[in-house]
């Protein structure tokens, strides 16, 4: 199923029902646009992800790819 755009209504509902934070509709619309942009950045790179990925692998990758220490 194709994903629909994040809407101000969704943000407003989350703010109220999940987080207990009041929000104006104008601000909810702004946040919807920003959240959409951030989510899209991840979705557009998801082909790089692997079943065995683990967030803790980052530190090991830094060490593995390290440069000269001098």
């Amino acid at each position, binding site marked *: 199923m194709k994903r629909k755009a994040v809407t101000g209504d969704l943000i407003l509902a989350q703010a109220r029902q999940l987080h207990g934070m009041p929000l104006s509709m104008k601000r909810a619309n702004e*946040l919807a646009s920003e959240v959409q942009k951030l989510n899209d950045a*991840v979705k557009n790179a998801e082909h790089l992800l692997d079943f065995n990925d683990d967030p803790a692998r*980052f530190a090991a990758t*830094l*060490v593995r790819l390290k*440069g000269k220490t001098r």
Partner: protein
Amino acid sequence: MKGELVDLSLTAVAEAIRKRKVSSVEVARACLERIDRIQPSVNCYIGIERAGVLRAARKADEAIAKRRALGPLHGVPLAHKDMYYRAGKISTGGAHILRDYKPNIDSTAGARLDAAGALWLGTLNMAEFAANPTGHNVHFGHCRNPWNTEHITGGSSSGSGAAVAARTCFGSLGSDTGGSVRLPAAANGVVGLKPTYGLISRYGIVPRSWSHDTVGPLTRTVRDCARMTRVVAGSDPNDPTSTSELIPNYEEGIDAGIKGLRIGVPRRYYCDDITDDVRSAMDASLAALRSLGARIVPVDAPDPKRLFLVSNLITKCEAAAIHARWMRERPEDYSMVVRARVEDGFHVPAVAYIEALNLRPHFLEEFVSTVFSKCDVLHCPVMTLPVPTIAETDPAAPGDVPRIIERLTRNTRPFNHLGTPALSVPAGFSNNGLPVAFQLVGRPYSEALLFRAGHAYQSVTDWHARAPAL
């Protein structure tokens, strides 16, 4: 010697104290006099510890007289971003909410500076919760750029950049999550290091985003930066993300030069909207590096926009978790900018956050194989525009915030996501008279190489020796 004391570099003043050419008390007094002169116009200090620093300086002088073993920063006055915890002392984090906050632990970085003999001169202004690259602070007053007080200092380590540039202290710890050391270093004409993620312990600092936070020094010279980094770097059982790699003496070999070093210049993206005056400074810096024997190599670096956005997603989610309770219970105690920067994080799905974390090693592999197969060090501007004014970067509404943040941090944040080290080095002045800087980026744990290249550059230029007229 007194009239020139505050102009000495950190390593030079440490040497002068050690050899008893000057006392630590004299140096501390010179710093305090300088602070009194510039604080009303620059506002870089939140707390000034007059009695404490003079007491510590007297002890430092006694230790020299008694020929005790001395640390590499013995008797040298430093001041730090107001987010390094000292048990029982206030750490405001530049935030109204933490105005009276007294943690009961010491930061590892601060404790290591103490053990190396450094003195604590005061706590420095910063952006609220380290969350604004302009350096604005509505709670403690904006810190102002000592080169022109109408202009921003850059942030979030605003006071660190201004205090070091204004010769009130010899070095400072800042923190860098998206550019917060490099931006104020660049805007104030001083050196700043964002180290490899995990090189320096984050234990005992105000958190901004656990997966991206780094502790970094700001100093006047690259050699000074190398010394401070060596003192604070290394494994810490209190920070499970700290490195277990051995820390070299970064000052050894710093004079070895850069003949044959391949310096990469990105063909695209990093200079896309650069102004002519900043480009001229970048070109001149590359010419200076070439004159030292480096080879300048064009490289195809991956588009940083993707890194910027995925990094932003992570820091927003982590900041939302850090601030969730206060954002619910006392939102009015945050500035509009910090609220605006944290709010989005509440609405990003947890799955997207974890996927973003999982993308980091993939992005790092791609960047290293694409860029560092062609060059040893990458060169690009810290900011592609001249340092703007405070008025130009003051958002009128929350919706203005992302545009301002992105314009300032587009070249810095990607390297926080990659976890690679990046050294900001002063490279002249733009048409408005404010400093300009390039950054040198290397493979993980290549700080020694960055210091060697930056030091070589400073051996044939004098931008770092220029001081604002105050």
